[in-house]
């Protein structure tokens, strides 16, 4: 049974490769996470012993993340921004799904491609182009009317818009895919049973879309949370966490508190990821 043996050897090699790949994926995260527990002022070897100070200690120089006002406020802003982005992009993603799945209109294919484009525009460029436009508009309004539209100045609003501009493509694609699988006869059946249009939407179509909406909201939330390139140009004085951490790293000097934040983020995102898998689990009823 020579072929069975070579097959087995090949398969073992293949599995080893897969295992190596996942080690590769996990390594930097494990490194970033584990230095959070190093009892040292620098996130570097040698190992100085285990500590939880970088999470809970309340005094300098080892100020733990849960006592670090700036990190906490970064976390807060990240959260606020991510929630807004998720809500907005899921809403627009849903209308886009209905638009492209249910409607016929001229140049539909063209518009569909246009919908995908934001995903492949480099984030830096999205950021600066929105920044340029917003500042030009704000400057023009200020010059002409003497009114300062602070919403158009770098700040949370622009960050939300900037992230929304490409995350909406992701949510649209996810929700569109689900709506495409929707069996129209379910709606017709509901009609036939006497429901009004609004009731059909509310009791049949939206519940059907719910898993996709939740999953895409989670993806939107996470992508927003980790976004750097677009945010960098649009951020004002309320910096989200990635920017705070970057500033800390590049301008202040990193301590294992950054590793502690990383660790917490990993745990949080991991949990969210599990939730999203749970809601997206192909329900056996799915048509």
């Amino acid at each position, binding site marked *: 049974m020579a072929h069975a043996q070579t097959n087995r050897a090949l398969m073992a090699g*293949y599995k080893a490769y*897969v295992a190596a*790949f*996942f080690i*590769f*994926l996990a*390594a930097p*995260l*494990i*490194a*970033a996470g584990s230095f959070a527990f190093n009892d040292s002022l620098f996130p570097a*070897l040698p190992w100085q012993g285990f500590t939880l100070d970088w999470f809970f200690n309340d005094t300098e120089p080892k100020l733990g993340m849960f006592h670090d006002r700036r990190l906490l406020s970064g976390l807060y802003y990240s959260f606020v921004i991510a929630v807004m982005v998720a809500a907005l992009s899921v809403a*627009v993603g849903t*209308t*886009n799904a209905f*638009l492209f799945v249910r*409607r016929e*209109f001229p140049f539909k*294919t063209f518009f569909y*491609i*246009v*919908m995908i*484009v*934001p*995903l*492949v*525009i*480099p*984030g*830096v*460029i*999205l950021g*600066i*182009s*929105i920044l*340029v*436009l917003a500042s*030009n508009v704000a400057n023009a309004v200020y010059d002409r009317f003497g009114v300062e539209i602070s919403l158009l100045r770098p700040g949370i609003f622009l960050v939300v*818009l*900037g992230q*929304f*501009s490409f995350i909406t493509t992701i949510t649209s*694609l996810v929700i569109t895919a689900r709506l495409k699988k929707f069996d129209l006869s379910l709606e017709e059946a509901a009609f036939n049973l006497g429901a009004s249009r609004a009731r059909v939407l509310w009791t049949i179509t939206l519940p059907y879309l719910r898993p996709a909406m939740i999953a895409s909201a989670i993806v939107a939330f*996470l992508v927003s949370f*980790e976004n*750097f*390139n677009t945010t960098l140009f649009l951020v004002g004085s309320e910096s989200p*966490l*990635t920017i705070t*951490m970057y500033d800390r*790293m590049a301008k202040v000097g*990193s301590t294992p508190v950054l*590793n502690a934040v*990383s660790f917490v*983020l*990993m745990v949080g*995102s*991991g949990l969210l*990821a599990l939730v999203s*898998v749970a809601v997206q689990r192909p329900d056996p009823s799915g048509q």
Partner: protein
Amino acid sequence: MTRDAKRLSLILLFAPFALWILLLIVLPHIGMVALSLREKVAPRVYEFGFGNYIDFLNEPIYWNTLLRTASMSLLVTALALLIGFPIAYYIAKIAGRRARGALFLMCLIPLWVSDLIRAFGWILLLRQTGVISSLLVWSGMTDEGIEFLYNDAAVIVGLVYTVILFMIVPLVSTLDGMGDDMIEAGYNLGGGHLTVLRRIIIPYAMPGIVAGCIVTFMLTAGSYLTPILLGGKNSSWFTEQIYNQFITRFNWESGAAFGFLLLAFTSITVWLGLRLSGQSLANTVART
């Protein structure tokens, strides 16, 4: 539904889409192009002109950096495909039902932390006194620590790491759609492993491959943190130039020109790729 109601609802559905695309994509890009066509002649005095683009062409540093960015991005894309394809295949076709979900989730793990933390992790691993080098010294394979950081290889490792899941995800979803019977038919009709791979699996996965390559390429070319943080003294990246123009040289006009050039250049590359592979954007990225 009456005609009018139909029209109205179409308009209502179209409005958010139109506002989004117009206000956040089209107008900003037009604004950027317009800005890039302004030449600074004196403080607060500007003129229309192509000066910023001419500067770009006249300065080999700029276009060298752009070419370097593009070619390294292509390399990263190719590596991501080579490394990612077997993984995607394993997840979609070989792993059992249960393992599949778990592995897929594990692939997404890097996505759940930011670029910054990923780069940070790599720095901790790769630096001369970092984990890998220390392990080598400890195991006696070298006497002195080896610097793995601050070179192009580190940048490529970091970038491949960052983008590979955008390669794997579309690959898994196309390969998932391919019935096992298709592959078995390939063997049954006499094909060896290579033939089946080359003639059946790869052509079938083509939309996923192209989608993955586009996203990977664009993300790489547009990345900022990883090349900055892991790159060495010679590694310039085009987004860094753009950043420098905007932030350290306050030269928005040429920054905008650079931005437009990056977008145009990467778009042309993608377009060429689509032409060569005979795919279209709609049937690739949209399917994933």
